[in-house]
Every structure is written in structure tokens, then in C-alpha cells.
């Protein structure tokens, strides 16, 4: 037996016990600290998805108040090509129940709940250990008197608790919304059991892809695991939604649960259980890999790097743009794929409506002012989502600009003969150029998607400029906040402005709120750009906010201390 040598320095020392509340939330445990660190993301996720659940109930109750209107929804969806219908929810199986509040929410937004929550889980679980390892702080945590497995377990548990709490909020909001705004005679009421069934599905999907990211993180690092998991999630969703068949559809958790539509009373517990079990297996694999592998050592993904010339070292604008370019290209490519997919679906459907005047009449009743014989009209329906994406992209560009200061580079940069205002203006211009790259990617995607089915989407391609305008305005907002106040909060506040704008635009008409309140949303002033109908007020407003915001930021930074 190995003998212990030495004398403990505190042989009989007793310390005050750590309060339970600090173990749950605070600095009393790894779990508590992780919960504390994740509070903002929880508030955003629960707020966004809970808010969406609430607002959708109100919107559907207002827009489709009569049995006739509900019937038209059913006809509308029923007349769409299956390939487009089931991408968002199993409308075929729902049949008449699509016209209920639960059916419509499932069809139009069900995938958004699960994809959004899963995306949150991917980001959180790919970064909770790998990100900390990359920063170097994990070395210190790992030298605390816990095993690596326990560290990973506590961090994992913290995210799972918050994720399940967020989907519980969604369930509660669905029940509240359906009972407050729905019509019982139309079958709108969603019971707590049904809502929990829906939330359970959202949660296991998130656990599946979050677990995959967690399992890959020790091998690929944070960016690699998040990228692979997010890409796979989108591919498997599309494979299931478009009923592509083959192995991709077979391994898709969306396919396994395609008949689980609890908001209209259809359940497939076996499918949900299967997704959950695989998710847990991924999580266990992640735990074990983290436990067995060297800390912070990853295989890494050999991603192609940009040529040195475009990284920009000639001056502040080119340097800032060089920093923005990788994420601008990422957004551009992602949006291009999205745009191509939607445009390729919208074109044929527009042709189908054009050939069937009766169907066109139905659409006109539900969406007055829209001409559904053009692909642009279909894309206009998704404009709100495009604008949210553009806003979030802008927030990430603001974050990159801000990282000069938050990362400690600005101190070195400003010690050169470079005025503060010039740095802000250079960063703002670079962020706007990044917006241009992203917008060009989206426009290209729409063009290619339409061309692939011989469709014409000229107006829609020009309409993508609306995304660029909103993103530019959000860059202005972020730079203004960063310059005037602090860069460490600029991106977060920009993202909150994006969410608030979206909710105002969605909520105000649905809840019959005063018009002035609706007008606060920048996105309410853009007209219908995807069909070529522009509102000059919105264009001017976006330009003024973009340029004015950068100018304000430049002025603000000359008046405050540079942070370290």
C-alpha cells in the first residue's frame, strides 16, 4: 500500500458550508456558475420562443377568426405541393386539423421552435467545454478537486436544465395563448398535456443535435463541432421535410417523429423516445470522450483559409473588413442555400397558382394585396424571417467590430497615429461591406434557386436589398451603442433590438395595438420589396440609422475611456 507522506496543512479545518442557493445559481458549484453564465441566453431563448408561442396564438385567432377562414387555410395548404407543405410540419397527416390553432402553429412554426432550440443547444454544448478549453480557463477548473467527468456533467446538466425550462415556458405560453385568443368551437384550445407533448418533442430534438455537438466537441473543437452539427441538422430537416428518402431521411430525427403532432392530438411516443435515447447516447459519448482525451487537444477541422491578400493589412478599413470577411461569407453562403431552397420551391408553386384561378382567389382572400402568381410573393411571405436573419447577422458583425476593444487590441491600435473616430468609421464601413457580401450571397442564392426551376425572380433578387438595408441599420445601432456606451454590450443590444422589432411588427397588428406602436418597427416601413413594391420611408430610415449610428459611435468614442 502506498503510504501517504506529508502532513495536511489544515488537518482539522472546517469551513462554512456553501449555501444551497449558490450551488444552484452562483459561484457555489460548476453547475451554479454555468447556470449563472447562461442566464442571458436562457432569457433570450425562453423570451423569444415563449413570446412567439404567445403571439402566434393571438395572430391566428385574429387573422383567421371564422370557420370559413379556417377552411380556406386548410384548402390553401392542401393545394400546395407536398414537397413544400411538409417541410414545416406534417400537414398531410393533420388534414382538417390544420385549421386549428395548434395545427397552424405546428405547420408554420413547429420547425422553428425545434430548430431554434436545437441551435441554442448546439452553440451551448459545443462551447461549454471546448470554448473554455480554448480560452485556457478549463485548465484551472480541471485542477479543482473534481474529476473531469463531474465537471462535464455539471456543465451539461446546467444547460439541460435551462433548455428544458425554456421549452416548458413554450408549453405554458401555448396553453395560455390558445385559451386566451383561440376559439373553442374551432378546436383551438390546447391542453397542457398536448403542449407538454410538443415541448417534449422540441426538447428531444434539441438534445439530439446538442448532444451531437457535445460528442464532437472534444474531437473537433468548438467551431468544428458546432458547424458540423448545425449543418447536419439542416440537412436532416430538409431530407425529412422534402421526403427525399434514402439514408439521410432514415437517420433524420425529424423523420422519426414525423407523426408526432401533439398540438392536434397525434402522438408517436416511440419516435420521441428514440430521438431522446440517441440524444442521451451522444451526451454520454461526449462525457466519456472529454474524460479520456487530453484537455483542450482537438483533431480540428482543416477549414480552407482565406488568401492573405484579402485579410487586409493596408489600413484600418481593409483590416476591419478582413476580420469581417469570414463571417460575412459564412452568412452569405448560409443565406444563399436558404434562398436557393425557398426560391426553387416558390417558383413552381407560383406557376401552379397562375394555372388555377380558383386557388389564386383563395390566396387573395387570405393575403390581400399579394399576387401569388409570382415567386416573389411567396418569398415576401418569408420576408420577416429574412429580416430577422439579416438583423442577427448585423449583430455578429457588430460583435466582430467590438472585439477590437473587448479583446484588448484597440489599445495597441490606438497607440498608433489613428484617431478614435477614424477607427469607428473604418469599423463601421467594414461592417457595411460585410452586410453587402452577405446580401449578395442571399441574392445569388435566390437567383440560382429560381434558375434551377426555370423561374423568374428578378424583383425578389432586388428585394434582397431590404435585408441589406435592415442589416445596415442594425450595424448603425450597434456601432452607436458601442461608441457611445460600451462595445461589450453592443452586439447583445443590437440582437435585442432585432427581436423587439420582430415582435412589434408581429404583435401590433395581431393584437390591434395602436398604429404608432406598429410604426416603431423599422421592418414595418419596407413595403413588399420581394415583389418590387418599396416604401421610400423605410429606405431613407435605414440609411439614416446606418450612417447616423456610425457617426454617433465615432463621436461617442472620442468622449469616453477605452476599455481593456
Amino acid at each position, binding site marked *: 500500500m502506498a503510504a501517504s507522506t506529508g502532513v495536511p496543512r489544515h488537518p482539522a479545518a472546517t469551513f462554512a458550508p456553501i449555501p444551497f442557493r449558490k450551488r444552484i445559481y452562483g459561484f457555489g458549484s460548476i453547475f451554479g456558475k454555468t447556470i449563472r453564465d447562461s442566464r442571458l441566453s436562457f432569457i433570450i431563448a425562453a423570451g423569444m420562443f415563449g413570446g412567439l408561442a404567445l403571439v402566434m396564438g393571438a395572430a391566428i385567432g385574429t387573422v383567421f377568426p371564422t370557420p370559413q377562414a379556417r377552411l380556406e387555410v386548410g384548402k390553401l395548404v392542401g393545394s400546395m405541393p407536398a414537397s413544400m407543405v411538409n417541410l414545416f410540419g406534417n400537414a398531410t397527416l393533420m388534414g382538417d386539423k390544420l385549421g386549428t390553432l395548434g395545427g397552424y402553429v405546428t405547420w408554420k412554426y413547429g420547425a422553428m421552435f425545434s430548430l431554434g432550440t436545437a441551435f441554442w443547444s448546439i452553440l451551448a454544448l459545443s462551447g461549454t467545454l471546448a470554448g473554455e478549453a480554448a480560452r485556457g480557463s478549463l485548465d484551472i477548473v480541471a485542477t479543482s478537486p473534481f474529476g473531469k467527468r463531474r465537471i462535464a456533467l455539471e456543465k451539461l446538466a446546467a444547460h439541460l436544465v435551462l433548455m428544458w425550462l425554456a421549452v416548458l415556458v413554450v408549453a405554458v405560453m401555448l396553453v395560455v395563448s390558445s385559451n386566451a385568443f383561440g376559439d373553442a368551437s374551432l378546436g383551438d384550445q390546447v391542453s397542457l398535456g398536448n403542449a407538454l407533448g410538443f415541448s417534449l418533442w422540441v426538447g428531444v430534438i434539441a438534445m439530439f443535435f446538442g448532444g451531437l455537438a457535445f460528442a464532437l466537441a472534444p474531437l473537433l473543437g468548438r467551431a468544428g463541432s458546432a458547424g458540423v452539427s448545425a449543418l447536419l441538422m439542416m440537412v436532416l430537416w430538409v431530407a425529412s421535410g422534402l421526403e427525399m428518402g434514402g439514408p439521410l431521411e432514415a437517420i433524420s430525427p425529424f423523420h422519426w417523429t414525423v407523426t408526432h403532432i401533439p398540438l392536434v392530438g397525434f402522438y408517436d411516443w416511440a419516435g420521441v423516445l428514440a430521438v431522446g435515447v440517441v440524444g442521451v447516447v451522444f451526451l454520454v459519448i461526449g462525457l466519456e470522450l472529454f474524460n479520456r482525451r487530453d484537455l483542450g487537444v482537438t483533431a480540428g477541422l482543416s477549414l480552407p483559409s482565406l488568401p492573405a491578400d484579402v485579410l487586409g493589412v493596408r489600413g484600418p478599413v481593409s*483590416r476591419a473588413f478582413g*476580420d469581417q470577411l469570414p463571417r460575412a461569407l459564412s452568412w452569405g453562403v448560409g443565406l444563399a442555400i436558404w434562398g436557393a431552397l425557398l426560391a426553387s420551391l416558390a417558383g413552381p408553386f407560383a406557376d401552379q397558382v397562375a394555372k388555377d384561378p380558383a386557388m389564386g382567389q383563395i390566396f387573395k382572400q387570405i393575403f390581400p394585396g399579394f399576387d401569388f402568381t409570382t415567386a416573389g410573393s411567396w418569398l415576401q411571405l418569408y420576408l420577416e424571417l429574412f429580416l430577422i436573419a439579416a438583423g442577427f447577422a448585423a449583430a455578429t458583425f457588430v460583435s466582430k467590430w467590438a472585439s477590437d476593444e473587448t479583446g484588448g*487590441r484597440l*489599445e495597441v491600435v490606438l497607440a498608433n*497615429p489613428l484617431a478614435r473616430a477614424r477607427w469607428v468609421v473604418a469599423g463601421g464601413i467594414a461592417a457595411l461591406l460585410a452586410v453587402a457580401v452577405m446580401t449578395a450571397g442571399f441574392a445569388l442564392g435566390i437567383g440560382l434557386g429560381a434558375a434551377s426551376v426555370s423561374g423568374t425572380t428578378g424583383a425578389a433578387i432586388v428585394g434582397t436589398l431590404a435585408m441589406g438595408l435592415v442589416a445596415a441599420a442594425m450595424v448603425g445601432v450597434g456601432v452607436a451603442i458601442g461608441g457611445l456606451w460600451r462595445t461589450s454590450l453592443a452586439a447583445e443590444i443590437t440582437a435585442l433590438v432585432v427581436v423587439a422589432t420582430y415582435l412589434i411588427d408581429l404583435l401590433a397588428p395581431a393584437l390591434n395595438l395602436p398604429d404608432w406602436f406598429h410604426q416603431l418597427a423599422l421592418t414595418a416601413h419596407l413595403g413588399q420589396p420581394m415583389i418590387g413594391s418599396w416604401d421610400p420611408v423605410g429606405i431613407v430610415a435605414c440609411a439614416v440609422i446606418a450612417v447616423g449610428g456610425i457617426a454617433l459611435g465615432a463621436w461617442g468614442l472620442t468622449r*469616453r475611456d477605452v476599455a481593456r
Partner: protein
Amino acid sequence: MPPVITLEKLTKTYGKSRGIIDVDLEVQQGEVFGFLGPNGAGKTTTIRTMLDLIRPTSGRASVFGIESTADPVAIHRRIGYIPGEFALYDRLTGKQTLEYFANLRGGVDPAYQASLIERFDLDTGKRFKTYSKGNKQKVGVVAALQHKPELLVLDEPTSGLDPLVQQTFFETLREAVADGASVFLSSHILSEVEKTCGRVAIIRDGRLTKVDTIEGLRDLAHHQVELRFSGPVPTAAFEAIPGVSDLAAEDHTLRMRVAGPITPVVRAAAQYELLDFVSREPSLEETFLAQYGREAVEAGPDGR
């Protein structure tokens, strides 16, 4: 010749937190000026205020006779700065990083840049994020020196550098000074200040407590004297000598602390039969600790 740096009653507070208070000092042209203080004493705050990265709450800082808040760009054009903690561009290689900072200054002498890279044995082909801490610091050092600035403002510049590279760094610094540069060197490593600087300011709790030459600081020094007698220890013969304190007798040995001239002690000791006489002059570090207390050096990083 006007001073290269002038701080007048320079004060910076962060809300209720202390930063620096009423700091007054001047650094002359061609001087290597040391700025000493424990962690959190206010060294970095002083530098950042001087360079207009943060704004003074009151008082003023002038560099090259230009008030820091009036025309910081004119100041920055003539300085080289190594921050205490810094990060640069992860995706850029060392070469690209240096090229960028050279471009921001309108270009540098490529031969001098290359000589610095060679001297510091820096592999500039790697991306910044892959560098070790020491190599990242080397990039910062070369970026600060490559344009031959008139004034070098260095905040803990040797952090992360190995002893050989530190030696190279101080050699380069001496050459820059010989070439007409001035240096403001903030450090808590007393030995490097002792070897490099002509004058030193000591800051503690945000206030300057001493500005003096290295020699002047040494005058603060005491001698630790140990006398071994063949007979009984004549403690009383030493008690009355001015500057003598901390007398401790043990067997035939007498130990004491002597501040100021040591001659009276030597004279008194000569009256007795001595077996040994040991006098040791402490390093500046020991002087610093004796003057300001070990706790000052080991103070927590609660200040800035």
C-alpha cells in the same frame, strides 16, 4: 530641453474606486525612467491616461509638450507602446501583423524591421493565435520598436520573455536610447529597473511615494551587519550609534541594521577583538520591500 513627459496633479478615478491621485512627475528627453509599484498601484492607469486611452478625472498629462487629450494622434505618431496585456489578430501571421502596424504608421524601414525580427528570433510565418505567450510578446515588442519611436512606453514589457530574450530586449532598448529615444518603463520587477533606469518613481495606492535616482533609492538602503567577537558581545557599545537598530545578540555574534554611514560601526567594532565582520548591502528589491512593506508588493489586484 523640455521634458518628454509631464504629469501634473494627474488624477483618475473610476466612480468610487481609486485609480491614481495627484500624480506629478517629469521624464526628461533621453532618459530611461522606471515606474515601480505593486500590483494594482496605478501604473497602467497612469500610462493609459498619459496616452489618452482613458481620460483624466482632473489634472493633466503632456507628452512632447502636447496635452494628451488635445492631440493624442500627434503623440501616438511619435511613440511605441507595449501594453501590459494585449491581444492581436488571431488570423494574421506575425508578418502580417507587423506589416499592418507598419502601414498604420505610413511604413517603416524594412531593414530595421528585419533586424528586429532576427534579433528576437521571431518566426513570423505563424498565425498569431498559434504563438506561445513569449512569441506573442515578441510580436508586440517588434511592433513597438520597428518605427524607431522617440518615446517608448513599456508596460511590463518582458512579461513572458525568457531570460535570453529579455537580455536582447534590454540591449535593443539601450541602443534605442543611445539613438536618442526616451523610455518610460513600468514594471514590478525591481532588478530590471535597477539595471536599466536612471531615475525611478514609486507608486503605491495610486499616489507617487518617491521619485529619485537609482542611487538615491539605494541611499535608502541599510546594511545588515554581523560581528563575531572572541569574547562577550558588547551590545551597549553599539546601541547609541546613530542609524543602528534591530540589535540582536546570540552567543558571540551581534547582528544589527545600519542605516546611513557604516563608518561609526566599524570604528566601534575596532575597539574589540573580532573574529569576523560581515556587512551586506541589500538589493534594490530588499530596499523596496523594507521601505514599503512586503504586503505592498503582494497586494491583491483590486486596483487598476
